């Protein structure tokens, strides 16, 4: 499984200001079943790279290939469709909708994928059981702890069994037990054939990754 290149960056250049690129001719392969840590000092463009790989930013040069096909330069609706169907995201601060319940947050992406709600709700309950937040299904994000919020974000990311899982500092604010739960979950997703890319400063998390890329 690790021989299959799920996601690849090919000579990526990107800068918020064209004259000052943050990433320059950067290339890497990310294999199915592999958990890769991206590390480096603050300001080197780790999160920016994650968002370029996540098709939220278009590189000024180079390609982001999914299963061998460039996806970075496709039209916006196609990139949105790929994010909805192929990707799972765990953001730095969980990024939950504070006005909706935990369950609503987890199944939010069904609308973007155009998939039925009922199976998604069943799957969401399974994931909430797995990550120990089942009792919080009807709560609002403001009523849960930071660790629970991050686990809820993980449930949302895993709902559609993504082939590419991107996580930005997923253990940043978590206690060791919660961190272990998150790390176990991303490894489990990798074992299901996903390419997992984690931006982190957490040495414990880096130590458990299959590979490390330094920016």
């Amino acid at each position, binding site marked *: 499984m690790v021989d299959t290149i799920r996601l690849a960056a090919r000579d990526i250049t990107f800068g918020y200001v064209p004259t000052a690129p943050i990433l320059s001719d950067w290339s890497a392969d990310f294999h199915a079943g592999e958990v890769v840590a991206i590390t480096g000092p603050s300001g080197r463009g780790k*999160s*920016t790279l994650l*968002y370029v790989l*996540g098709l*939220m*930013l278009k590189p000024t040069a180079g390609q982001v290939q999914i299963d061998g096909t460039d996806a970075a330069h496709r039209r*916006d*609706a196609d990139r*949105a*469709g*790929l*994010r*909805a*169907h192929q*990707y799972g*995201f765990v*953001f*730095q*601060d969980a*990024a939950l*909708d504070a*006005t*909706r319940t935990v369950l*609503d947050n987890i199944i*939010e*992406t*069904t*609308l*973007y*994928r*155009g*998939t*039925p*709600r009922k199976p998604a709700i069943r799957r969401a309950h399974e994931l909430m059981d797995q990550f120990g937040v089942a009792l919080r299904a009807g709560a609002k994000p403001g009523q849960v702890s930071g660790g629970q919020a991050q686990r809820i974000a993980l449930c*949302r990311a895993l709902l559609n069994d993504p082939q590419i899982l991107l996580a930005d500092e997923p253990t940043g604010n978590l206690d060791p037990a919660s961190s272990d739960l998150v790390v176990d979950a991303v490894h489990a997703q990798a074992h299901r054939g996903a390419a997992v890319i984690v931006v982190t400063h957490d040495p414990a998390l880096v130590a458990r990754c299959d590979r490390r890329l330094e920016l």
Partner: protein
Amino acid sequence: MSALRRWAAVVREALATAWAQPVASVVTIVMVAGMCATVLLTTGRTVGAEQAVLGSIDSEGTRSIIIRADTDAGLDATVLDRLAHIDGIQWAGAFGIAQDVTNLQFAGATKVPMRLAWSSQLNHLGITTLPPVSNASIWASPTALAGLGMPDAVGAVVDDSGVDFAVTGSLTVPDFLAFLEPLVIAPQTENTPGTVAVLIVIADRPDLVAPVSDAVRSVLAVTDPAKVTLTTSENLAALRGLVEGQLDSFGRSLVVVVFALTAVLVAAILYGLVMLRRKDFGRRRALGASQALIISLLLTQTGALALVGATIGSIAASIGLTASGDPLPGWDFVGAVALLSTTIGVIAALVPALAAARRDPLKELRVP
């Protein structure tokens, strides 16, 4: 997922989002309700006044055509059959020569004129069923009943030749028959022959009075046209058209100005509300929502809230106009304003929706 189920999912999500954001939703509802109520309480009052003025003019018979025929002119009730083939006629009725009747119980009592009457639409006068013996039953207006001394519409009358008639009921006299008051009629079936002294035709619209008059004149089939006079309300209809045009123009200008001002206000506030939710839209975009979906969600949400606001605004304004004794502009106008308010609310949300859809997700998601 089929297009219909996908649309239903968008509507459900839009409603759920509106429900989950009560403050923004209430502000939107209040704004649209205010816009709707403002229009109705200003231009609606103008339109109501216009309709009242036109109603007053119409009540004077702007659409009526009156033909008076001498006894020997040769006009008979068969003219109604011929009128039935003319378009643009709302009502037609023929009335015979007046003959005096008086209360059977009081010799020497007040005399009132009674006429034979023909029309296929006597229900407009409150007569729902014709009597089995046409020349034995009469209906009388309240004025005529008072003159006959029969306020309860019960009794009998007798004519100068000694023939008596049972009073069967009270007539509802429309404005265009007021000149025949006090009115007592003996309804006739359409195939009962009889000489007609007065023929009244009501056109569908004031502007049809002239052409309908010409058509009516052509089917009178009288033996001596010189013994027939035709009176129309053409001048009154022209005046009505002038008044209607001027009031319409004023009302339209007022509607445009009020809608434009309130729409700008609604758009500005909606833009502010959307900007407050930019993190929400950034997250949705990052998780895979397309720009089109973001726009659909926002427009559906605003449309639903605007519909609620327009309904509330319309009801509140109608209650206000009723309470203040002002004329209501009519439900079609109220409905049109509510629909326009909803549409304006949705259009006003379009710019903020486009802005929301084009937000860079990273700007909203990155943690400083």
